[in-house]
């Protein structure tokens, strides 16, 4: 009896056995599949994924565009984030306010509104014709505000005592930056930054609104032709998970790896 209980119940300090992990994962999977299957049956839908083969090139292209969009946006938003985090502690007041208002405006409004605003007003006014480039810019401006806060938070987490210790051992400014500040803020920011990358991938789906043919838009177009909405969106979800799941695992790993503060 105790043995069976142990397979499902863990107290805080115990190590969880592999059998218990596998068993419970299986249990949860069955539960989800059953729930889905029952729901689909209730509305008399029978899934048929055979069309995927026919559209595989378009899906693959969309998948690649999503990866390209996300990677480019991640790099650009990282740069924007660093500049904005630094700007928020600038001695020049107008730069500080500019960055502060940027972060508050972006974080306080929905992405879809920003996409329309930037694409149709600012994009048109400044003659940005490539939808991919416009998409990267819009997404970077959006994510940059979040990354700015991640970086600002990790800068704030730097302890004054660590900087004093750096002076105490005789480090100069460059050595302090290289051996103390940089490793400590990286440790603090890296897990959150990785998590933000997963958000970028998901958020890039909204660029379908301005007809960037990324993964979501490709699926929308396909479903508009064959009307297999459920299959299209289910498969779309699976593809996004293929990207985001490994990233969130990496993020969790990094979090454990850098957990040196008691």
């Amino acid at each position, binding site marked *: 009896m105790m043995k069976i209980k142990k397979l499902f119940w863990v107290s805080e300090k115990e190590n969880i056995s592999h059998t218990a992990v596998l068993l419970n994962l299986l249990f949860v999977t069955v539960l989800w599949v059953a729930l889905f299957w029952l729901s689909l049956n209730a509305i008399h839908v029978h899934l048929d994924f055979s069309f995927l083969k026919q559209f595989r090139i378009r899906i693959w292209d969309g998948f690649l565009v999503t990866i390209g969009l996300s990677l480019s946006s991640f790099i650009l938003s990282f740069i924007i984030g660093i500049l904005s985090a630094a700007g928020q502690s600038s001695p020049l007041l107008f730069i500080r306010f500019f960055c502060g208002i940027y972060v508050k405006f972006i974080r306080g409004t929905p992405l879809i509104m920003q996409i329309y605003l930037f694409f149709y007003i600012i994009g048109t006014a400044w003659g940005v014709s490539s939808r991919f480039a416009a998409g990267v810019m819009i997404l970077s401006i959006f994510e940059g505000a979040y990354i700015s806060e991640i970086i600002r938070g990790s800068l704030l987490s730097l302890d004054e005592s660590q900087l004093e210790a*750096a002076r105490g051992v005789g*480090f100069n400014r460059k050595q302090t930056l290289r051996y103390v500040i940089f490793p400590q803020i990286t440790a603090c920011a890296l897990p959150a930054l990785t998590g933000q990358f997963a958000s970028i991938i998901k958020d890039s789906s909204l660029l379908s609104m301005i007809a960037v043919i990324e993964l979501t838009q490709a699926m929308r177009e396909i479903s508009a032709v064959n009307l297999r909405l459920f299959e299209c969106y289910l498969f779309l979800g699976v593809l996004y998970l293929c990207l985001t799941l490994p990233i969130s695992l990496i993020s969790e790993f990094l979090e454990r790896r850098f957990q040196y503060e008691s």
Partner: protein
Amino acid sequence: MKVEFQNLSKQFEAGQTILKPMDFSDEINTLAIIGPSGGGKSTLLRIIGGLITPTTGRLWVDSKEVTQKESDLQKYRRQIGFVFQQGGLFRHMNAKDNIAIPLEQVHGYSKETASARAMELLERFGLKDDWKKRPAALSGGQKQRVAIARAIAPRPKLLLLDEPTSALDPEYTTEVLDVIRELKDEGMHFIIVTHEMGFARHACEKTAFLYEGSLLEYCESEQLFNHPWTGQLQRFLGKLLEWNV
């Protein structure tokens, strides 16, 4: 080692005075600075260590003036070992790196020599098996022993310790004070800010009593504790004795 200052004072930006202008000149081997909190002990130690600059006055250590230019201070700090009350170890580095990386980067040791010197000191302080641990995994006493090892690793001419035991449990306090006592026996010059009156009295040749930013008493430790002549020091010592066993 000769330590001398003239008209030395410190005011913080908000305007409060931490140290009133003071003069001092003496040969120092081992000195304890005692006094109530807020009396300016740590501030004085930091000025002597070149970590903060005084508002007025000049300072000479080992008969050389400590000029208050950042580039000069950086060079000066390399000759001084500093141990902080707590949080002085780099928390992202293990015990060995905490000692070895400054040796490599600041003092120009090769990687191997720095690492060997770090291990030698860790072994000496009974931490050989803990060299891989980061500060969070060490006990308070172990942390302070690593901090002392780091401070003396480059063989500084003067060791400054800012309340190295006041964040520690009593049993760790003893192990840390034992280490400092050992260093004294080897001829290390040090100045320690401390609340451990027994240590000041028996392990330090001289003691200075700092009270509200002024140096009220300074003499041989034995004499200072046996014959405190200012009312402030008498009251201060009286308070500490109240709960003695």
